[in-house]
């Protein structure tokens, strides 16, 4: 019912949206890994030195 009221994407539009979604997912995943390594590189062993 909702699909009938909403926009129905063509096959080409769906393909392009999927390409954007996959790229965005990969970029976000890569950023998570990068932030982790940068944190380790900057803080080193101090990562574990914090008050409880």
């Amino acid at each position, binding site marked *: 019912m909702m699909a009938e009221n909403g926009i129905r994407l063509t096959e080409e539009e769906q393909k392009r949206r999927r390409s954007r979604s996959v790229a965005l997912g990969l970029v976000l995943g890569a950023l998570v890994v*990068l932030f982790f390594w940068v944190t380790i590189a900057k803080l080193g062993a101090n990562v574990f030195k914090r008050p409880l």
Partner: protein
Amino acid sequence: MSLVTDIHDDFSAKRRPTVSMGTAGDYFELLKPRVMSLVILTALVGMVLSPEPVNPVIGFAALLAIAVGAGASGCLNMWWDADIDARMSRTSKRPIPAGSVTAGEALAFGITLSVGSVLFLGVVTNWFAAGFLAFTIFFYAVVYSMWLKRSTAQNIVIGGAAGAFPPMIGYAAATGSVNLDSFVLFLIIFLWTPPHFWALALVKSGDYAAAGVPMLPVVRGAAHTRLQILLYTIVLVPVGIAPSFMGFGGVAYFVVSTVTGAAMLALAIKIYRTGDGEAANKAAMQMFGFSILYLLLLFAVMLAEHSFGFGAGMTRALGVLFGGVA
């Protein structure tokens, strides 16, 4: 009542809202990847000039931030120049004039990446480097694209500074400051930009004229442009060799910068001597192509020297050659 009627008409006509047609590749194209690869190389060279070794993870993150910042400024440039890009054969297939990405999407993408790259560089390295990157993005997107490009024939001379800053940003990311060595790297790219782009503009002057961009050949004519290419190349070549005598370019750099510099000069003289016509276009395109190789070689050799440690400074090498103390 009319508002209600308008809204009703909108729905009843079943007008289809705009759906984004951009692929991931289109968005990547907005970042001007070829320019970005040159930025990565030149910023990396600026970074390896640092007297203190840089942590590879921090160095990689800083390079990524600088590259994305440069890409973001390219994206903002494409957003602003979409109207003239559509009128020129070389640029008419870019994502915005081609219709795959809307101007609004490109603007949002460019601003997001600009802010993100500057903040990331600041957090990862230091705020001086981040400020320098922010200034570079502003300089390219606002000073060059919005102001100079359509108003003066010196557009790429002054605007070229934006493309020349990356080695200084790389050095700043590694050390928190800039020095004379990184400034010389800036100067090499700054002096290289006019002969490089004017060689292309000589061939594409019709395109630029149709788009209303006051490039030097359009405003001052081909003969004046050929003279300017020669003059800039005469100044560029010795500056290109200078690192060898300042202690941060080795023997390999001296040989490569001298040989390729001589070739650049020969091509500039050829352009100057060749009149108009097909031969002139061929000479200009030779200069355009070779100038890319020239800059690439200078920075690649300097990177190799500093990375693999075979870059004995020229002053030291000359001392050895002439029997002095190394």
